[in-house]
């Protein structure tokens, strides 16, 4: 399934419910689906806020693949590039709530997903890949 949106926060709710419906229809575990959805919301929010600097009208492409045992999303934007390595490594070592606002999105993604991958080609496109396997009961 492909969903294209533009860089406005008001689209987040629609994307979340689309994924929820899709998860239900393929029988993907609900608790795992809501964790996947939050991680994807964080990724989209970051793209709008940081890659597109909260400017509306820029494209974001979401490719979604949902099976009963795995959820996978590939999100492409054409905004600013960034170096994810220090941010991801800090998120993997996240221990406590920071003193100041912000910096929670990527730690959340790291904790909620089985795999997060940033594939940044500066000036070309940025891709974020999210993978979540169903919790084994």
């Amino acid at each position, binding site marked *: 399934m492909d969903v294209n949106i533009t860089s406005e926060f008001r689209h987040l709710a629609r994307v979340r419910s689309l994924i929820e419906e899709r998860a239900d229809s393929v029988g993907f575990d609900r608790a795992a689906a809501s964790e996947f959805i939050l991680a994807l919301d964080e990724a989209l929010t970051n793209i709008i806020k940081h890659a597109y600097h909260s400017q509306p009208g820029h494209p974001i492409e979401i490719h979604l693949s949902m099976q009963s045992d795995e959820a996978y999303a590939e999100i492409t934007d054409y905004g600013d590039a960034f170096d994810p390595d220090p941010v991801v490594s800090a998120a993997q070592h996240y221990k406590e*709530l920071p003193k100041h606002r912000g910096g929670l999105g990527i730690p959340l993604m790291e904790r909620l997903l089985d795999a997060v991958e940033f594939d940044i080609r500066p000036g070309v496109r940025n891709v974020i890949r999210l993978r979540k396997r169903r919790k084994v009961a």
Partner: protein
Amino acid sequence: MDEFGIKVSQQGDVSVLRVKGYLDAHTAPELEKRMQELISQDRVRLVMELAELEYISSAGLGVFMAYVDEVRGRGGDIKFSSLTPRVYTVFDLLGFPILYEFFPETGEAVKRFPHADSADRGRA
């Protein structure tokens, strides 16, 4: 889908914010505005009643982080009550319970604030 909304009520000198629906980057500015209004009116004893909050992302969490130092510096606090397990998990994953107090009932959170008379004495 459930509409986002905030209802503010006063219990003595404690403001209770009943936050309902989905708190994300789209709706967080509304919460931020209400918090700013309250704080500018010197209402710094805040309880977030989240029983009807269905969803929270980092954009919502950031609002609490943005104001907690200021309200504590002015003798107040931000406390949380009646979270659903699903929403509490998000706070818990990030370590909020170490720096914030959570209560099953709003009444308990309200009672945790020192009484108004002793607070007045403190302020004078």
